[in-house]
């Protein structure tokens, strides 16, 4: 059933050295149970879960620890049975090394499961909504690395094609390769469940041509299925063909519209690991409490794939792979193109960790952050960019902080694949510049929102105080009048009243002037961008005032 359809190409891309043979020689090994597991509440895109267990409580394996109340969120579950010893801040694998809320479980080595009620083959009779709920409650997120809660994107509206992503285009990583080799049937079953939910008409399983064993295993599973619903599509090895955007282009020839979703062109993509996790949830009622992790690189004694319970510390995983070799140098979560480095290994494996790459010093060549050569506009980055951006122009405007221009050159369409940086002869850490520019722009937008809100609050307060003051004065005046009438004296002469009215009017005018005459400071020597910002601020101020007045 291996049809040969003409494949489309995306722009650019790279041929890399893959080093997959380091870790794909042996089978997937099971990680030995550890005594402590650290489960971060937020391991996915979206809001963190709400803790539903207490310190000291005993939990069973597979029991939900935190529930997802928000739409874009995912629950987390206990990877083992044991006792909650702590709920609090703990170091997590995050590029910034920041601490986050975690639940810490002490393993009781009983391996006692919560009661399981697997749906198994009955899923065929269930509706999409109920199935999605099972997937959502199993804490399943995209295991290709994006960790977006899977159930949310499984829409039934107009989905024609389900693409199963077994591309694994990053060097070194082989967890999907091994998964497909060893558990092809389960992956296909998982895909069938997804297809049932989204009512897809076809399912294309995509694998790069550098994984012949996985291709053979998946083909065998497809042949066994014999419904003709699945089709294997072998894709030429080219980085980053595993990126959702690129993969859809290769397979369908269509592009996801800007700011759109794959669903807009009738396509849904899922990673093979996610399909496997969904199979586990439906057929065994097991939530996502473990994942396959490639532990590899020349800094590791015995590179291999491990099935690791979520929450196992990275140090323990590495110890099980024979520990660090003497020239271990850099610890990277994910692949060498898009991963991030950590400075220590005392953090847990989370749902997003597909690879622990420990490199020796002569294995990696990151761009030089301290002193790189200037950009000579050679355009190699333009040739390499799969999104067809102009990385050299983005760099030019990002490095001088011109946020408007950098957005005009489509900064936010950059997928941070690293192709531009890889080919740059000046060794400029381009992606780093883009990340910085993105976060600066996000920060500015957040600040602007905050200051707008503060201004509205301030002006409302001034208004309220003014009203209160007037009310008080009015009351006082009336009281005085009443007192005067009681004493039989004539009311304060009309002249006095007029004087008071005039004084009050003057005060009002003065106050108004004060508010209006907040003259801007430091307005000399402004550049165009600053002047624009001032104009924008004035505009906002005016519009807010208008709203208030209305």
């Amino acid at each position: 059933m291996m049809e040969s359809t003409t494949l489309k190409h995306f722009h650019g891309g790279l041929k890399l050295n893959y080093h997959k043979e380091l870790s794909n020689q042996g089978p997937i090994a099971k990680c030995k149970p550890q005594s402590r597991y650290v489960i971060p509440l937020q391991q996915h895109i979206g809001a963190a879960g709400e803790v539903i267990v207490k310190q000291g409580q005993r939990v069973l394996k597979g029991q939900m620890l935190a529930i997802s109340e928000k739409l874009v969120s995912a629950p987390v579950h206990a990877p083992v049975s044991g006792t909650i010893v702590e709920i609090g801040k703990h170091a997590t694998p995050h590029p910034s090394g920041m601490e986050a809320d975690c639940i810490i479980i002490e393993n009781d080595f009983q391996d006692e499961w919560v009661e399981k009620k697997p749906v198994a083959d009955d899923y065929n009779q269930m509706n999409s909504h109920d199935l999605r709920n099972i997937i959502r409650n199993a804490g399943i997120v995209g295991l290709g690395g994006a960790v977006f809660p899977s159930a949310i994107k499984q829409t039934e509206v107009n989905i024609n094609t389900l693409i199963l992503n077994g591309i694994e285009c990053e060097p070194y990583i082989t967890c999907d390769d091994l998964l497909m080799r060893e558990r092809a049937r389960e992956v296909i079953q998982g895909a069938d469940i997804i297809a049932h939910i989204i009512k897809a008409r076809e399912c294309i399983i995509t694998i790069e041509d550098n994984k012949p064993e996985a291709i053979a295993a998946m083909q065998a599973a497809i042949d066994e299925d014999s419904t003709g619903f699945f089709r294997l599509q072998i894709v030429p090895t080219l980085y980053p063909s595993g990126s959702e955007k690129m993969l859809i282009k290769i397979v369908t020839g269509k592009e996801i519209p800007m700011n759109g979703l794959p669903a807009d062109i009738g396509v849904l993509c899922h990673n093979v690991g996610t399909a496997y996790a969904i199979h586990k949830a439906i057929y065994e009622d097991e939530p996502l409490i473990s994942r396959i992790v490639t532990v590899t690189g020349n800094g590791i004694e015995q590179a291999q794939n491990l099935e690791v319970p979520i929450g196992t510390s990275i140090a323990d995983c590495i110890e099980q792979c024979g520990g660090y070799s003497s020239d271990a140098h850099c610890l990277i979560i994910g692949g060498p193109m898009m991963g991030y480095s950590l400075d220590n290994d005392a953090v847990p494996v989370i749902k997003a960790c597909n690879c622990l790459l420990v490199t020796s010093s002569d294995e990696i060549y990151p761009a030089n952050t301290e002193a790189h050569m200037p950009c000579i506009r050679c355009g190699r980055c333009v040739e390499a960019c799969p999104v067809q951006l102009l990385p050299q122009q983005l760099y030019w405007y990002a490095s001088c902080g011109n946020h408007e221009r950098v957005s005009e050159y489509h900064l936010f369409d950059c997928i941070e694949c690293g192709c531009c940086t890889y080919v740059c002869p000046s060794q400029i850490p381009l992606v780093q510049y883009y990340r910085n520019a993105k976060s600066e722009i996000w920060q500015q937008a957040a600040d602007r929102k905050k200051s707008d809100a503060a201004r509205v609050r301030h002006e409302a307060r001034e208004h309220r105080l003014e009203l209160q003051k007037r009310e008080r004065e009015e009351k006082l005046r009336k009281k005085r009048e009443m007192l005067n009438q009681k004493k039989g004296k004539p009311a304060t002469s009309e002249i006095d009243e007029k004087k008071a009215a005039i004084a009050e009017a003057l005060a009002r005018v003065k106050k108004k002037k004060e508010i209006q005459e907040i003259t801007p400071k430091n307005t000399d020597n402004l550049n165009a961008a600053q002047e624009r910002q001032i104009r924008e601020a004035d505009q906002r101020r005016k519009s807010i005032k208008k709203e208030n007045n209305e």
Partner: protein
Amino acid sequence: MLFRKASSPFISAQASVHSIMYQVLYALIPGTLAAIYFFGWGILINLLITTTVCLLSEAIILKLRARPVSASLKDGSTLITACLLALALPPLVPWWLTMIASIFAIAIAKQLYGGLGFNLFNPAMVGYIVVMISFPGQMTFWTAPLGISDGWLSLGDTFSIIFHSALPDQSSIDSVTMATPIDAIKTQLSLEHDIANTRQHKVYGALFGNISGRGWEWINLLFLLSGLWLIKQKVIDWRIPVSFLVSLLLISNLFAVIDYASYPSALFHLFSGGTMLCAFFIATDPISASTTPRGRWIFGAGIAVLTYTIRTWGGYPDGIAFAVVLMNMTVPLLDYYTQPKIYGNRKVD
């Protein structure tokens, strides 16, 4: 255990600016040797002056700007500027003129704009234009190529012309200089001698060689071949040379077909003067050229149109330097308006 931190990607192709620049320099060698072979000691002396002065100016300005000196000198970009300048200048120009061109190219056109990567204009062409406008007389001091002259002007004579503006035996400079083919055609046309006539001319006829000029055709051919090598090595982008050469071919052919008596053939234009040097070494300077794919097509074609216009109707012998610098001016605009359509922003079948 503690580890070194870095940002992704952690691997790279390990290309370097240094290797790009030195490949360009290697590619310049065959054509330069041919230029020396045909025009004698003067080219070599020019090369020595431009190299020394360019490197010195770069070092001094970098020192003044408090930037690392040795790294910049080693990147090879200054050597390329020096080499292009030496190839563009006539072989017998006085030494001070070569110096002025070199200083202007490096100090003003390159360093005052911010150094490597920041110059808007091609430094060598700016240096050339400055002396071309200021000293048009001296800029005609081309020698007759080997094959017309019996041999090279002696080293001693070349020296005294360049450094003392005169031959030792007090003979006039005109006795050793010779017009270039482009110049000869232009002057003769203004005297109402058509091209066929000029090619038969008793003095200038010998200049034209087999195609476009004795010596010039060989120099251009060698630059073409080494340029193709640069494209194969992916050191330069193919779009600018292709666009430039094809446009020049089309325009010159058009006029030659209309009136072959007053307009030289396309072949003459392609293999005369600095055409091939411009196509593969000057217009392709990535820093001052357009950087978008479509922009590069327009950039190359623009240089061709301007070169042809200046060569044919302008007052200067070869229009390449002006054409390149004029197109350099348009680059910011070209880059802005020729952005490629990005993923998701276009119709695909």
